[in-house]
């Protein structure tokens, strides 16, 4: 059961501002879905390993250098979609 406090906490972790109206709207539907997920409690998963990936993958390494198969965007390309930029940097909101 997701309480109003839980919802406020996960909204904060998710960086999603929710209005009071949103909270009213989301709560019941989230709980209906969560109740449904509760059916997994009845599955015996004792000694079952989790599957994070379906294929036996190992990490892929490459040389730590620019070029080859690495994408190299120019500074202009990297900044081309930034809504706010200054002196060749992304412009972030203030910390405080």
């Amino acid at each position, binding site marked *: 059961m*997701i309480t109003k406090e*839980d*919802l406020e*906490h*996960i*909204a*904060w*972790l*998710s*960086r*999603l*501002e*929710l209005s009071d109206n949103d909270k009213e709207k*989301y709560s019941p*539907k*989230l709980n*209906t*879905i*969560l109740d*449904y*997920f509760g*059916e*997994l*409690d009845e*599955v015996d*998963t004792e000694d*079952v*390993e*989790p*599957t*994070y*990936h*379906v*294929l036996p*993958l190992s*990490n*892929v390494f*490459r040389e730590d250098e620019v070029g080859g*198969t*690495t*994408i190299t*965007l120019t500074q202009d*390309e*990297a900044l*081309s*979609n*930034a*809504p*706010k930029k200054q002196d060749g940097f*992304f412009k*972030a*909101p*203030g*910390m*405080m």
Partner: protein
Amino acid sequence: MWASINELKERIHADSSEEIVAEYLERIGSSRLNAFITVDGDGAISRAREIDSENSDGALAGIPIAIKDNISTKGLFTTCASHILKGYVPPYDAHVIERLKEAGAVIIGKTNMDEFAMGTSTETSFYGAAKNPWNTDRVPGGSSGGSAAAVAGGEVPLSLGSDTGGSVRCPASFCGVVGLKPTYGVISRYGLISYANSLEQIGPLATSVRDLATLFDVVAGHDPRDSTSVDRKSTYYSALKNDVKGLKIGVPAEYFGEGTDEAVEKSVWDAIHTLEDLGAAHTPVNMPHTKYALSAYYIIAMSEASSNLARFDGMRYGLRTGDTNWHTTFSQVRAAGFGEEVKRRILLGTYALSAGYHDRYYLKALKVRTLIKRDFERAFNDVDVLVAPTMPYPAFRPGEKIDDPLSLYLSDVDTVPINLAGVPSISVPCGFSGGLPIGMQVIGKHFDEATILRTAYTFEENTDYHTKRPEGL
């Protein structure tokens, strides 16, 4: 307007790619389906002219194609049907786009979809719902609804979608076209904007298995920029043989469960019997964990989504609201930019990963995923392919399920197990009910696309469902 690749090539040879592209653009321009978010008319015409002057012999030289709007196209808007990516122009091409360009394909536009591929009906698009060409009072399915509607509506001969939990196969089924979810790792995800990265694959859509295989050959293959891309050489078109003699078909009763429409059940069984008349044999198989696939899928998909969508903060691209402080600005950008379903999945995914709930939801779902994967491994010890309905029912009405998320999720009951196991599955038209198409899926072993393509091709060669076209568009 529903020409095959071969017919189009003859016309390109006789006339020009430019003429064909112009015809499709005209059809898109007068369409009521809202299948496209962006149409690149000028770009497509100028590319077609280039192909005409080069006399290119690429596999798709001069053939128009539409691309789901979550696949990055250099210089062409890519929005994921979300307000938060409004105006975003990728500075690079996805691997599949590089491949298509090398093969001479002409990218005609970007197709409508559920926002960030989260949906089953293409109703959550910021750019408005797409419509089903067979009946515009029905949804086209989702999330690649625009890609399927465009092909079914004769607005483009080929398209690409992406399939995280059925998002290629569902709209293929609802719109009466062919759609493939390949084995995880067969098509590079480089440039696909991630929703749930351990589940999703880019997949081709077409009006026939033959055309689908041609497109699949172009876009499949190893790419070192996607660490989950598999290095295997295959040609799929050459697998197309009109022959299923000795093929062992498994039929999992769990996929014909409660809520399956009678007409769907009958059409799929008729299809199985057609394949038997052609020399295949069917046997029942048990997949006892199927009923838990939906919960496991949604927990994993939402968890991965909550992480993957953390990148949308208005700093490097997309929407930006007025700045206050660091955290508040991001929270406001995301509140303004994401739609309701995307927020719901981020919230639930964050909950499932949060301290105290991680083991109960996320880890548990991953363990159930192992059991589902084993169901498939066990079934494939005895059979070559599985045949089942793609969707439990034909296309539903707009608004019918969208306000009840759980009932919408339940539509995915037959498609999500495939993504959890990472196996390939193709949806092909196998009947009609009330004027709406029905699709069946042919599911294969890991990397055995050849067998499901051959099965689908043989079915198609011996039936005419795939030749039916919607009227009155």
